[in-house]
């Protein structure tokens, strides 16, 4: 036991930092680190926002967010409840269209589209930009029909059996369901149902997968499988993930955006965000000081 020695002052005492900080008057623009900057045309951003604001009536759920999401990487969006992260995610493939009073200002480009442009085909946009939701929502049909349904509706003329198998393999589900493809998908476990929903999205051959808290309804084992799957998916797809679980964002994402009260506070490499964030609000959030 150490006794009778000089006491050093703790000038870095944290007890005073727990208070909720004020919102800065000037938005911090995302500063992508060197490993997040596009290096060639193939690495050009697939989603870009330019001072994007999204309103529900008079309420600005997202305020002047500017960011560029690179291809074939996992980008996580984190922030406390009500910060606008799901609203931003859902704007990327226009899932907010049917919310009364919703309007958008600023720029939002996704792949080749001006997302809210008058000539944009929202159905085609949603085919190329798939969505996986918080709770698994398989159709009350067989596993096979769940995966094949979207392709059929879109007039797919290839080998459906091959498409179903390929999609289920990419979703790391094939080995578990190959002997019961025509059994009801509702008999699958929650984790399997979520991977089935991912397979269903993949079957439409999208470029981007949006995931809105895909593991929040799953147990730790199923969560681990989905996280492994996300890591594998980025070889082919761009993944944008909204999560409340900061450890999950730290584990699976390459880039992380932190939002607070509608504003994009910081956007950088995940390693930077979770070890040495530049913004004090990000620092306070990831260390649990507020939110």
């Amino acid at each position, binding site marked *: 036991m*150490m006794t009778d020695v000089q006491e*050093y002052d*703790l000038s870095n005492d*944290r007890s005073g930092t*727990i208070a909720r900080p004020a919102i800065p008057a000037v938005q911090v623009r995302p500063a992508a680190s060197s490993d997040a900057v596009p290096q060639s045309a193939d690495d050009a951003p697939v989603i870009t926002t330019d001072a994007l604001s999204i309103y529900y009536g008079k309420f600005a759920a997202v305020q002047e967010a500017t960011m560029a999401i690179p291809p074939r990487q996992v980008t996580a969006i984190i922030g406390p409840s009500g910060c606008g992260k799901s609203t931003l995610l859902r704007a990327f493939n226009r899932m907010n269209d049917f919310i009364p009073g919703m309007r958008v200002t600023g720029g939002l480009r996704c792949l080749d589209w001006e997302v809210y442009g008058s000539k944009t085909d929202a159905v085609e946009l949603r085919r190329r930009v798939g969505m996986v939701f918080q709770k698994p929502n398989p159709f009350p049909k067989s596993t096979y029909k769940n995966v094949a349904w979207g392709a059929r509706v879109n007039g797919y003329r290839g080998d459906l059996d091959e498409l179903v198998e390929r999609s289920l393999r990419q979703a790391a589900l094939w080995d578990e369901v190959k002997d019961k493809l025509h059994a009801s998908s509702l008999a699958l476990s929650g984790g399997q149902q979520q991977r089935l929903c991912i397979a269903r999205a993949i079957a439409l051959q999208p470029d981007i997968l949006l995931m809105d808290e895909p593991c929040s309804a799953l147990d730790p084992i199923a969560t681990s499988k989905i996280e492994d799957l996300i890591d594998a998916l980025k070889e082919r797809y761009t993944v944008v993930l909204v999560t409340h679980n*900061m450890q999950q964002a730290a584990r699976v994402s390459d880039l992380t955006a932190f939002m607070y009260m509608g504003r994009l506070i910081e956007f950088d490499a995940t390693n930077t965000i*979770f070890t*040495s964030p530049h913004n004090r609000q990000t*620092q306070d959030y990831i*260390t649990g000081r507020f939110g």
Partner: protein
Amino acid sequence: MTVHFVHLLDELQRRSLRMASAVEDMVQEACEAVAHTNHELARRIIARDTDIDAEEVAVEGEALRLMTLFQPMGADMRQLCAILKVNNDLERIADCAVNMAERARHLDADAPADVRNELTAIFPAVRRMLHEAVRAYAGNDQTLAERVLTEDEVIDTFYGEFIRNIAALAHQSPERMHALLDYLSIAKNLERIADHASNVAEDVIYLTTGQIVRHQGK
């Protein structure tokens, strides 16, 4: 839970700083034991090593416990990493002080005074470097930590010259070999203490900036 974690982290930091103070005391006393050939003081320093070893294990255990239970991020994680790394360096510094004390117990009153005077001249620089490193650690002082790193070269230069002098003296007066080897060992431990102080300063820079500055410019 966050308030609880912050309290535990601050308490661990204080515990680490108490250990740093104890280690500083050991180094100071080791220097006195060498300068005044004080065998009793040397014996007491050697006896304190067990306390430091036990404290090192306790601090490491608590740091690992906090990492496991709270999964900290950002500055909190850097703080815990710094505590772990500084903890290791402090224990090694205490070992160096014990090594110096053991050499001091070998020395007798008629050990070559000229060599002793040359050696003791560097004591203040080593002790100041260690003290500033610990002060930088206590106050998250990046500027002070960077200054500590520049001071290591002074100690290294001294050590190089001291080796050459010892070699020349050993050649001239082989009958003094035992005492010369004791002084050489003491000088080596001083140089190691300065190296560990540099490590602490590097950890402070990581703590404050997130940048790992080890092995740069060498």
